[in-house]
């Protein structure tokens, strides 16, 4: 066999990596068929609800619907975004209303102006629900078409790692880490994209920067062409059981 996964680098990564968030089997240990049925239906409902919250975040973001976005988060939720960490709904609002999170031409707008394209297509969820059915994590990506008519156009993509909690029957976001994977002018040959900085400068924090984060992010997000898997995968490879981590 040519399977050769356990390189020295991989073993080192295992030693450093946190415990994986392992997928729970809802019917494990259940003998009673009614209990089994309830567990399966609950898991299906949870999966759909988590997907719905994550996709709704993308639709609301497209339309600059800040209150609706905030309603998806718990009170103490945090968002790691653009080299900063924002904690609590006041900070999240500061981020969502700033030009870090929307086209600068849309700052101050409560609805998307007609000359702006702000599409974030949310896709490819890997959802992992904890055994107790009360918390979950998911990895998604977006593929984005952004632009202002007559001024600029950008294609970009990024990775989301969400954490959720089920509170009084409703799934809410407790944490979000987002890393932009690439961002470049639409229809520009990738060969001609200027080399971005591997690590952006440490941001100014709030309140010295009125739109700034509360503190430094926990996640380095080197954009393409720099290599990166950030933010880290929350789940192990199903075949090896290994939580894969690369710098």
């Amino acid at each position, binding site marked *: *066999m*040519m*399977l*050769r*996964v356990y*390189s020295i*680098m*991989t073993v080192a990564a295992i030693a450093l990596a946190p415990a994986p968030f392992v*997928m729970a*089997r*809802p019917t*494990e240990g259940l003998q009673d*068929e*009614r209990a*089994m*049925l309830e567990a*399966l*239906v609950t*898991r*299906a409902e949870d*999966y759909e609800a988590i997907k719905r919250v994550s996709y709704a975040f993308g639709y609301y973001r497209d339309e600059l619907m800040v209150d609706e976005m905030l309603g998806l988060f718990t009170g103490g939720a945090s968002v790691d975004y653009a080299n900063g960490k924002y904690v609590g709904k006041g900070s999240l609002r500061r981020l969502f209303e700033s030009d870090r999170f929307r086209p600068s031409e849309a700052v101050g707008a409560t609805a998307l102006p007609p000359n702006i394209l702000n599409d974030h*297509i949310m*896709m*490819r*969820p*890997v*959802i*992992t629900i904890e055994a107790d059915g009360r918390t979950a994590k998911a*990895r998604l*990506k977006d*593929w984005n078409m952004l632009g202002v008519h007559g001024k600029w156009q950008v294609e970009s*993509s990024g990775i989301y790692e969400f954490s959720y909690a089920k509170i009084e029957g409703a799934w809410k976001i407790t944490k979000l880490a987002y890393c932009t*994977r*690439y961002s470049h002018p639409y*229809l*520009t*040959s*990738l*060969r001609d994209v200027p*080399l971005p900085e591997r690590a952006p400068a440490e941001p100014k924090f709030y309140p010295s920067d009125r739109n700034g984060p509360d503190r430094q992010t926990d996640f380095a997000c080197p954009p*393409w*062409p*720099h*290599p*990166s*898997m950030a933010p880290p*995968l929350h*789940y192990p*490879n*199903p*075949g*090896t059981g*290994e939580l*894969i981590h*690369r710098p």
Partner: protein
Amino acid sequence: MIRCLALAALALGGTTAAARDSAPTAEVEALVTRAGVLNDIYDIERLHGVYAYQQDNRLFDYQPYLFSEDEGVETHFMNGVYRGREGAARLWTGRFGAAQGGVNMPTFGYLIDKHDAQGIITVSPDRKTAKARFRTSRDPAPVYPGTSLAGETLIGVDQSVIYEMDYVRNGDDWRFKTWRICIYAQAYYGAGYAVLPKPGVMGIPADLGPDGWKKYDLSPEKLTATEGSVNAANTYYPQNPVGPDRTETPEQSGCYLARNQVMSKPAVVPFHFAHPVTGAFVTQLPSQEGK
């Protein structure tokens, strides 16, 4: 009258409770199966996501572990067929991994960005096997100039891709039984699909004629691809240590291999699923019209 209604309600309630206690197990079993199928669909969607993020991050050595160890496992790539989990490892670790220096991780300059979507997942009635069709656009940008580990010289392209997958149950989870991909169109990023085939660029011969796509055919009769070209893997294993065990023709796979062959030779990867309304299995023959 009230007394009658009360008695009737009591009788009804009693009947319902009794029915509940003695509900036919078959009914509950059928509901467990239906709920189980929904969970299977989610698990398969999740498995595809795991695969796709590993592909984006070029963790090629991990991909074979998503395959079943059962007999009959196959990987179909560019009309080459690789048998077993070992064959999958030959393709991913031996071929794709080697092309990036064997490091099994993202490297500077390379970009694979897939946007997998539109999954139709079909679980068999016994919940032991399943099939799925997905599509993706794919933006491989193998190089940031002069920095590739493998010294590649390609630039960013768009690709259009169809998956037709088979799965087999593995305990409570699923594994790939057949991984089948058709990259049916490819174009320069920034230039668009309509400009190709363009003689003399992106591997398209300068003298490309109407049947130029055939030069990229991997079928056994067409073993003329030059070493180093996209189809160099047309020599079988073990003569070629990373080669396929066999090949299939475009007619068998529904996948023609010329880059953006849809511009000159349409093809349809067969659908695994029945029409959702009529229940009939649908086939579509490639159009014979065109250039």
